[in-house]
């Protein structure tokens, strides 16, 4: 009886130590992946937000959440997929709240969005087209947008994208194709600005 009473806290402490060791392991592994994961999270966020500072905040938040779930998500492809989705979701949320804020501010300062002064014509055209593209990208349905961005990102094959997003390979290919056509439809009217590119 006495031994039983005394053994309980000892076993609790032991399991606590085991848990601590597992946490330390997870943390070491997470830090080893951090450079790669950090880039992935940041790029997804940056593509959505088009703003480096905001994207950095979102990537940090996504990475912390990913770390907190890391023990359950040891499988690399699953982990990357999870990170991509949480980064995308957080970026979209931030973009929506930023848009609401911009609309409020626009009421108070009307002539806000002046185009940047063009020094060289093609640079201006290029920047202009990039702006149109990114706005068109923003208007794409989310599932098309995420796949298209991942396909444009360096270092990810179509197979990896399928695994990250959790859809079949054929679905990824068709989503990319449809997304590019939709962008082309929106950007065709600006086609004159790409003649210098």
């Amino acid at each position: 009886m006495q031994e039983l009473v005394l053994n309980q806290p000892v076993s609790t402490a032991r399991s606590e130590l085991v848990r601590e060791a597992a946490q330390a392991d997870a943390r070491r592994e997470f830090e080893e992946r951090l450079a790669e994961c950090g880039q992935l999270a940041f790029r997804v966020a940056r593509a959505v937000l088009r703003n480096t500072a905001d994207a950095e905040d979102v990537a940090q938040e996504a990475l912390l959440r990913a770390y907190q779930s890391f023990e359950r998500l040891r499988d690399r492809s699953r982990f990357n997929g999870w990170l991509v989705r949480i980064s995308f979701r957080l970026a979209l949320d931030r973009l929506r709240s930023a848009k609401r804020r911009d609309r409020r501010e626009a009421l108070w300062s009307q002539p806000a969005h002046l185009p940047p002064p063009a020094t060289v014509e093609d640079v201006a055209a290029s920047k202009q087209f990039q702006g149109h593209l990114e706005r068109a990208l923003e208007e794409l349905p989310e599932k098309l947008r995420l796949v298209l961005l991942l396909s444009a990102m360096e270092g990810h094959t179509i197979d990896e994208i399928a695994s990250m997003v959790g859809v079949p390979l054929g679905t990824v290919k068709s989503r990319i194709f449809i997304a590019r056509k939709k962008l082309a439809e929106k950007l065709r009217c600006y086609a004159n600005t790409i003649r210098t590119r």
Partner: protein
Amino acid sequence: MLCEHYKDALIEAAASGAAPSGELREHLAECASCRAVFGQEQSLFAAIDTGLHAAANAKIPLSLLPRVRARLEEVATPRLGWVQQLVFACTGVVLALVIFLMARPHRAAREELAKQGPVTVPASMPPAKSVNREETSSEGTQIAAIPVNRSHTLRDSTSSPSAASSNPEVLVPPDEREAFARLVGVLNERSDLGASLLAKVPEKEDGLAAVDPLQIPDIEIKPLEGTETETSHGAGEKH
């Protein structure tokens, strides 16, 4: 002017990035207008791909990873603190248990003595005479059950009423003490009564070693209170 019939096929071909084939290729070879449009579409898709690449491959800021590492440190530290607190709490509980378990045998022994006391009561209880039977039996308990060291317990009980009420073997409340003093008074006056009263105690409790030390000779009976009631009984026996 684009020939409407080839419009969709032309866009599909430009979007896929593959070279036009079959009927479209033949038409493009003949139709300069469609060739021009096809060229524009190819440029458009190339521009889209370039723009997408730029949008999707932004350079990661140098500050991001250090910031994340710092936050990881913050997240990890409170967890360790919590673990340490738990370990300290467990240690405290274990110590408390050890102290409790070590203290328990003493209490158990005292409780055992307390149980022995009441058991001896009916045996030691003399037939009632002119004195209140319950008072007598209660004192009888003390006398019969208390061996050499019990006198000490009795003294404790008189100085601490609360302790006395919780432990039956040391019950000597003031009114009982007074009653006992009266009994002693009566016994002093009538020594034959005292002798007959106490003579039966050793007979009925012959199995108890506690009785023998009480037969102390050469002590005078004095109507004193508290601890000396014991000695007066012993003297009463001698009478």
